[in-house]
C-alpha cells in the first residue's frame, strides 16, 4: 500500500514538474564559449545585465583557454553539428570558420550609430569578401620591452622617452650593448614556434617590406630587395653576436624569457598587454613610449603599427541566430566594453569602439595608423596558419644556411602564390 502511494506521488510530481515547466514558456538557452580560460567578473556582469534585459534568454557560459585546445574543441563541435551559439576567440582563430561556412554574416546587424562608433579599420579587418564575420571586441598592437638598466650601464645616454629613435642612433645603442662586459645581447630573433610571427614581420617592416599588399598575399614584398636586406641584416646581427645563435630553434617564449632574465636588452613582444604585465611584475624596466607606434626604421620605410589581432565574437549558424546575434551585439556594446575596460582584467589593449578611452601608449599609434594604415598579418585569410608555417620554414632555411636570404624568400613567395591558385 505504502509503495503504491509513493509511486503515485512520484508520478504526480513528475507530471506537475513537466507541466509547470511547459507552462512557464520556452526559454532560449544560448551556449556561449569564451577564450579567457578563467571566470571574468566583468563578463559575468555583462551576461547578468543581458539576461535582466532579456528574461526569455539564458546564457550558458563555458570558459576555455584560447589556443589549439579551443580550436580542436570547436572543430569537433562543427564536425558533429553541435556548435555553441556564440563564441569569443582570438580573431585569427575565428576567421578560418568563415571559410567553413558556419558563421552568420553580421553586416546588416549594426546600426548607423554602431558603425560610426566602431574603429573603421578594425571593422575592415573583421570583414571577408564584404562580409562582417565577427564583431571586434578589443585589439592590440605589438610593442617593445627592454632593459633600461643595461642600456644605461652600456653608456647609452640619450634613451628616448617620447620620440622615435633614429635608426642609426638605435644601431649605435646596440653597438654599445654588445661591447659591454658580460654575456648580453642587444637583440633576440626567433624563428621556431607557431606564434610571434608578428615579431619577425616587424623586423621586415623596419626595412620597408611587408607580408602582403592590398590584402593580396601573392603581392608579398618579403622577397623584394628591402625584404632580402632585412633578412640579411638579421643574419648579420646573429653572426656578429648581436643576437643569440640558433635562431631557427629559439621560440617566442624563450626569447621573451631571455628579455625578462636580463640577458637580452631589446625584444619585440606580440602584444602590449603582455609587455605591460611583465613590466608591472618588474621583469623588465623599460617600455619605450615609442615602442607601440614608431619603431626604428630605415629612411623611407613608413612606420606602420602592426595589428596583431585581438578577441572577436562570432555567431554560429543555427536555430537561435537571432538571440545569439542580440547577445553578441550586447557583448560589444558601449556599456559592456566600459565594464571590461574598467575591470582592469583586459589592460593595455584598445577596445573596438572609439567611445572607449584608448590607453595613452596606443593613442599615438592610432594617429599613425590613421595616416599610414594598419599593417596586418592577414588574419582574415583562409590560409593564415599555413602562411605562418611557411614563413617560419623560409626563415629557418635562411638562418641555418641551407639557402641564402634571397633564395629562401623567393621560395616562400612562390609557395604563397601556389596556395592561392
Amino acid at each position: 500500500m505504502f509503495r503504491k502511494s509513493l509511486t503515485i506521488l512520484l508520478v504526480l510530481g513528475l507530471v506537475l514538474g513537466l507541466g509547470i515547466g511547459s507552462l512557464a514558456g520556452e526559454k532560449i538557452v544560448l551556449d556561449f564559449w569564451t577564450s579567457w580560460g578563467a571566470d571574468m567578473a566583468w563578463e559575468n556582469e555583462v551576461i547578468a545585465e543581458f539576461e535582466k534585459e532579456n528574461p526569455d534568454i539564458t546564457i550558458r557560459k563555458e570558459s576555455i583557454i584560447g589556443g589549439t585546445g579551443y580550436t580542436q574543441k570547436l572543430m569537433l563541435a562543427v564536425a558533429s553539428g553541435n556548435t555553441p551559439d556564440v563564441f569569443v576567440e582570438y580573431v585569427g582563430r575565428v576567421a578560418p570558420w568563415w571559410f567553413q561556412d558556419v558563421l552568420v554574416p553580421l553586416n546588416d546587424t549594426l546600426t548607423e550609430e554602431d558603425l560610426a562608433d566602431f574603429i573603421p579599420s578594425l571593422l575592415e579587418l573583421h570583414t571577408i569578401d564584404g562580409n562582417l564575420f565577427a564583431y571586434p571586441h578589443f585589439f592590440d598592437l605589438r610593442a617593445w620591452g627592454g632593459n633600461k638598466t643595461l642600456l644605461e650601464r652600456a653608456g647609452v645616454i640619450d634613451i628616448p622617452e617620447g620620440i622615435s629613435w633614429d635608426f642609426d642612433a638605435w644601431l649605435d645603442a646596440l653597438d654599445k650593448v654588445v661591447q659591454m662586459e658580460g654575456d648580453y645581447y642587444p637583440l633576440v630573433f626567433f624563428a621556431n614556434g607557431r606564434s610571434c610571427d608578428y615579431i619577425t614581420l616587424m623586423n621586415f617592416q623596419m626595412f620597408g617590406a611587408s607580408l602582403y599588399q592590398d590584402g593580396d598575399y601573392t603581392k608579398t614584398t618579403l622577397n623584394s630587395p628591402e625584404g632580402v636586406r632585412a633578412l640579411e641584416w638579421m643574419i648579420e646581427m646573429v653572426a656578429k653576436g648581436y643576437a643569440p645563435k640558433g635562431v631557427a630553434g629559439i621560440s617566442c617564449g624563450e626569447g621573451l624569457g631571455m628579455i625578462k632574465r636580463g640577458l637580452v636588452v631589446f625584444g619585440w613582444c606580440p602584444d602590449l598587454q603582455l609587455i605591460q604585465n611583465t613590466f608591472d611584475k618588474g621583469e623588465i624596466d623599460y617600455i619605450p613610449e615609442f615602442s607601440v607606434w614608431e619603431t626604428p626604421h630605415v629612411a623611407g620605410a613608413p612606420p606602420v603599427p602592426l595589428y596583431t589581432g585581438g578577441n572577436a565574437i562570432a555567431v554560429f549558424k543555427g536555430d537561435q541566430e537571432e538571440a545569439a546575434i542580440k547577445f553578441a551585439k550586447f557583448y560589444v556594446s558601449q556599456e559592456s566594453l566600459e565594464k571590461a575596460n574598467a575591470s582592469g582584467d583586459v589592460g593595455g589593449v584598445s577596445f573596438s569602439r572609439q567611445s572607449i578611452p584608448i590607453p595613452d601608449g596606443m593613442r599615438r599609434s592610432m594617429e599613425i595608423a590613421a595616416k599610414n594604415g594598419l599593417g596586418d598579418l592577414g588574419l582574415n585569410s583562409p590560409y593564415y596558419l599555413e602562411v605562418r608555417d611557411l614563413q617560419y620554414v623560409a626563415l629557418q632555411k635562411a638562418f641555418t644556411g641551407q639557402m641564402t636570404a634571397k633564395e629562401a624568400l623567393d621560395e616562400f613567395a612562390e609557395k604563397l602564390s601556389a596556395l592561392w591558385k
Partner: protein
Amino acid sequence: MEVRRVLHRIKKERSAYFFIMPTLLLVFTFTFYPLVQGIRLSFFKAGLRERTWVGFQNYSELFRDPLFWLELKNTLIIAAILIPLVVGSSLLIASLIVQFKKPWQIFFRGAFYLPVVTSGVVISMVWIWIFNPTYGLLNHILSLVNIEPVMWLGTTNPARLAVVILIFSWSLGANIIYYSASLAAIPKTMYEAAMMDGANSLQRFFKITIPLVMPMTLFILMMTSIGAFQIVEAVYILTGGGPAYATTTVAFRIYQLGFRYFRFGQASVQAVILLMIVFSFAFLQFRYLSKKLEF
C-alpha cells in the same frame, strides 16, 4: 555443414561471447570503424564539412611531394636511433638496478619512472630550456669539457638528436619496470650454475639474461617501434617540425594537415601509409624474434 558447426560452437560458448562483447564493441567502435573510415577518407578531398571523391589523386600527389619523402626520412632516422637506444638502455639499467639492495631498487625504479607520469608538454618545455644554445644546461655542461656550443634546436641533425633525447628520457621508465619484472623471474640457480662453470658477468648477461628476457624484449621492441613512428607531441612542442622540416615526422604532418589546415583527405593518406609501415615493421619483428624465444 561448416556454418552449422560454427553456429553450434557459438551457441555452446555463448556465455564467453557475452562477456567479451562489451570489449569487442569498444574495439570495433574506437579502432576498426575509425580505421575503415580513415582509409575511406583517403580517397576524398575532405575539409571539415565538404567531401569530394578524388580516387587515388591524394596518393599520387603525396608520392610526388618532396616533403613527404623528407618526413619519411626523418621518421626512419629518429626510429633507427631511438629503438635500439631505448631497448638496450632499459635492459642495461634494469640489470644494474636489480643488483642493488631492495630500497635502492625501489628508489631508482621510481626515479626513472617519474618522467612517465609527468605531462609530455611539461617535459618538452623543460627540455626547450635545457637545449637553449646560449643559456641551456646541456651546452653549459659541454663547455666544461671544452666542447663548442651546439645549436640543438636550430640545426638539422642536432634537432633530430634533441627529439631522440627527449623521447628517450621519457620512454625509459616504463621499459625498466617491464625488464625488472622479467629479470626477477629468471631463476638465480641458473646464474649460480654458470658461475660455478666459470662464466664471467658479461657471459652470464649475454648467454643467460638476454635469451631469457627475449619475450619481454619482443614486447618492448614492438611497443617502442610503434611509439617511435607516432611521435607528435615532442616535435610539436620542441621544434614545431623544424628547423626547415628537419624534425617533421609523418605523424606530426598528419596532425598538421588534419587539425591545423583542415585537409583531412591528405592527412588520411599519410595515416594509411604510416599504418602500412608500422604494421610491416611489427610483423617482421614478430616473425623474426619469436623464433628466438626461449622459456
